[in-house]
């Protein structure tokens, strides 16, 4: 077992795993098969995986919901519109206005209060009600989820790939490359994730990123993806570097070197497979963190740019009317909670399955 101070992990051999599984019964089975067997027995993790898949599928079906159920585009403001509820026309936003009387008196009829959840009373329209601009909350919830999940998954994937490369290079070569990469990790680590995310997200969301051959528009989803991917690099890179450092001097690496294997071959065929289980666990955990970060950045205006929805922007849109229209913030909040809890519980289950003694986790 190697320890870097921030994280702990074990490197169990197939024999060690087999011993825990009951000896001869699993003889000849690969560690992956054993892990799958363990995971199948973890019903809680599987249930939460199912929940996550449900959310994912629902969000992927957003265009179907938009076309066949709500009949509106997520960004369509219908502030002056009306719908038919039980045969009666009801405005999507309540109508109001001010009247001036004698002596400067003013009478106000409060307006702009969005229609609440209809629960099917108006067909599929406004099933979960409208937001302050008359947009369909249900449609935005699904499209918002799509954006949040896409950003979370994409940024986690990019972070993981970059982190693996950096960790392998740093730990395998050591010396100057290790020093440079480690200081790079330290530099990013020194900033709180949200603070660095806001700084980068705000700067890039004004004019986009236009350097060399890379041109990303200000409102592009690639901005939050890139920002989140960047800020999480050390959170995967550092533990992986520690693992590779421990593996670097193991006998099988020395054996490969003695047989004349090149650096690239050793890294890809000897080291990478040995950190694969940790990578998998870290990835599931970083996805949850990335989704939360996206929600935070979008809430603060540094992530997904309006009018496009994300769960974060939806919470922000609803916060000013929390007292009268709590569902506007509650619904995306519930979706975030479900998604993040499912990913975390499944991630823990996966970690237990892949390596029961491991304590791989994301440190902040």
């Amino acid at each position, binding site marked *: 077992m190697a320890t870097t101070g921030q994280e702990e992990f074990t490197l169990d051999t197939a024999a060690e795993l087999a011993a825990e599984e009951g000896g001869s019964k699993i003889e000849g089975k690969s560690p992956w098969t054993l892990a799958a067997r363990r995971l199948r027995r973890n019903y809680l993790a599987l249930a939460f995986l199912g929940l996550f898949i449900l959310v994912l599928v629902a969000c992927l079906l957003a265009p179907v919901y938009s076309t066949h159920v709500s009949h509106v585009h997520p*960004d*369509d*403001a219908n*502030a*002056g519109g009306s719908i038919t509820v039980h045969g009666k026309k009801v405005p999507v*936003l*309540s*109508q*109001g*206005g*001010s*009247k*001036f009387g004698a*002596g*400067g008196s*003013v*009478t*106000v*009829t*409060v*307006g*702009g*209060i969005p229609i609440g959840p209809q629960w099917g009373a108006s067909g599929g329209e406004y099933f979960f009600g409208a937001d*302050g*601009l008359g947009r369909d909350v249900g449609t935005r919830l699904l499209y918002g989820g799509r954006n949040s999940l896409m950003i979370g998954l994409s940024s986690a994937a990019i972070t993981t790939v970059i982190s693996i490369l950096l960790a392998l290079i740093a730990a395998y070569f050591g010396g100057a490359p290790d020093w440079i990469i480690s200081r790079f990790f330290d530099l990013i680590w020194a900033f709180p994730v949200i603070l660095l995310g806001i700084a980068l997200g705000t700067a890039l969301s004004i004019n986009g990123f236009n350097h060399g051959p890379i041109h990303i528009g*200000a*409102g592009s989803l690639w901005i939050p993806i890139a920002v989140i991917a960047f800020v999480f690099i050390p959170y995967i890179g550092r533990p992986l570097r520690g693992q590779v450092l421990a593996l670097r001097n193991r006998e099988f690496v020395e054996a490969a070197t003695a047989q004349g294997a090149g650096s690239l071959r050793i890294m890809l065929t000897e080291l990478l497979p040995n950190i694969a289980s940790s990578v998998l666990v870290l990835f599931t955990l970083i996805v949850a963190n990335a989704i939360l970060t996206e929600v935070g950045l979008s809430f603060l*205006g540094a992530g997904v*740019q*309006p*009018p496009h929805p994300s769960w974060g922007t939806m919470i922000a849109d609803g916060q*000013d*009317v*929390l*007292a*009268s*229209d709590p569902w506007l913030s509650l619904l995306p909040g519930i979706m975030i909670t479900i998604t993040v809890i499912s990913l975390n519980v499944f991630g823990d289950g996966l970690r237990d399955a892949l390596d029961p003694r491991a304590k791989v986790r994301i440190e902040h």
Partner: protein
Amino acid sequence: MRTKRVRSVAVAAVVAAGLALVVSACGGGGGGGGGSSSTSSSSQGKTFSQIKVVWGTTDYMDPGLSYRLESWQIFQDVYLGLVAKNPQTCGVGVGCTKIIPAIAEALPKSNSDGTDLKFTLRKGLKFSNGEPIKASDFKNSIIRDFKLNSPGIGFFSNIAGSEACEGNPSKCSDISGIIVDDKAGTVEIKLTKPQSDFLYILTTFFAAIVPSSTPDKDTENPPPPADGPYYISQYKPSRSFTVVRNPNWQSIPGIPDGNPDKITAIMTNDLAQSAQYVQSGQYDYDENTLPTDRLKQLQQKYGEQIKLWRTPSTYYFFMNQRTPPFDKLEARQAVNYAINRQTLVDLRGGLGVPTWNFLPPTYPQYKKITPTPYPYDLQKAKQLVQQSGTAGMTVGVYTISDDDIDKKQGEYLASQLDKIGWKTKLHELAGANYFVIVGNQKTKAQIGFTDWFEDYPYPTDWFDVLQNGKNIHEQHNNNNSNVNFKDTNAEIDRLGHLPPSQAFTDSTNAAWAALDKKLMVQYASEAPFLNGVITSFFSSRMDPNCDIFTDLFDDVAQMCVK
């Protein structure tokens, strides 16, 4: 709600002569002077120890720098200039058009065209720090504005000898057109050409008198010594301030001495929290507008403790006529057809009245444009976009990100423009930088949200500053639409240069109204959509019936307890 915002103005309205003199002499002119906005109260005038208030945050607490209503509302009881608007005659719907002498003992004597104004200061007046108020303090206050590069320096560009200061504000050392004599206590102001609204400009806080010893930098903790009935003893930006009686104050006719001995304020922009402070009785007055989603409930519960006021304000969408597609009339007309003004009022929680005019109805020069020139008609808007040949063009829509209502109105506009054939790109910017960015020609902001609250009650504040092509600037540009039509520019100048005796005549008022109509209907220079309403919320300890609303804001110093 940060709709109670006064924007940066780099340029003053510069128009015809001596009008304000006539205004003051006539007691408010054609439409002014119509009585106080307060209802009478037996407790009015009774002093009490302290009022605790909740306030919105502001930019500065220095009269040379601040251009926000949150500061000006406090300044009205703290800083005086040579002349002041008469708070006793401010009436909702009629404006504060009457001007009275303040630090000056009388309204100025002037030559026939009003380009030479002579004031004599009241004798024996002192600042809150004990320094005597001298004639040179006025001159130095104006010079200080230049040195600070104050947003108000444009107001003084017509003073003879101010050109050098305008060219290099930080090096401003003298303005030859302001001649002062400390011994005699006289101030003479020479203008390069007649300017009708100059006395009104002298009522703004950029012309407030501060001691010559005041540093030529943002002075906030504490703010500069006062010459009004109160002074600001402590200010913590975005957190709190305290205002107490000026120990050296000597009563001036028409300027109220004030009721509370002390005003203690906590500052927040959280509307719900702000209202909660007053609901709980911890604070007595909420300067912030009530949250619109709770307005109905609060009105039902607190009834008379909530007051509603119409303001001399217009909310509108600017359309930059220097850049496509809004260089084409059809495109601007399309925007006017595409917005549902009632919906925009709804988005503001009902706190407003739809308008198609640029000038608010609080002015005697206002005449409602009839018939409704641009009724909501999306089909017509689509046709006009097609006719303009700009369909499919990408249009950048600008709005404020940290004000929920401004944000919604910008997003609504973007959504409507998408529906009529353009592709929009939203730019949501923080309120603190918004007008600086859209007021910079390099930004090339095509269309966006804006509003205007009057600086002083004459139409030049609207048409000369916002609709005159002569006042288009590369930076700090308030004419965001870059409105520049030869005939309307000439008409603005003509109306501004009328003899003072004709300034408030029916024909002049009608001419201003015709100008409003020509710009808004024939040229569709802007897309005005509502005149705003704001709220005042009092705790049960206060008597809301003695609230004085001075056209733009409540006067805290005149509030009274039950």
